[in-house]
């Protein structure tokens, strides 16, 4: 988890209102002990970056929805 510290020179385009066409997929979703949820994105330009889930909700909601729907499991009550 420490490799997150290795700062790459990739700067996600925060000025863009939507990342839907720039992101290829959500790679992982991870929960921290403090309750935060971090989302790792794989960009079409080959870069990767990690963000708070609320950022991803705003910038590319369809990608995180697709990730969740790829991991759906229905359990008998």
């Amino acid at each position, binding site marked *: *988890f420490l490799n*997150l510290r290795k700062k790459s020179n990739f700067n996600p385009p925060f000025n863009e209102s939507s990342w839907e066409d720039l992101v290829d997929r959500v790679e*992982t979703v991870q*929960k921290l002990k403090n309750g935060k949820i971090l989302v790792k994105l794989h960009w079409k330009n080959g870069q990767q970056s990690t963000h708070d889930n609320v950022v991803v909700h705003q910038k590319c909601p369809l990608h995180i929805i697709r990730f969740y*729907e790829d991991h759906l499991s229905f359990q008998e*009550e």
Partner: protein
Amino acid sequence: MPKAVGFVKKVVIPKKPLDVLLPFYDSDETTVEKVLKEDENLLYVTFLAGLEASLRKKDIYLYKNGEICYQKYLKRKRRVIDDDSDYDADR
């Protein structure tokens, strides 16, 4: 950086009898009107209900008119390609 709990493995949803989905479901909402464009995995479509959405190619058969509209789209695409090659040949 705080320690991690873990990576998402599943989204676990309690299974329920389908009548929980009533009282109102109208599958006509997602009758495909037109396929606008495609990329590697997705089709961008408009529905009769006046909504634009992206669908997985493998799911297009789930939607009324989906297959037919996709075939029409491919035919249009081929015709454009043929016209372009005729244009190149003429020059």
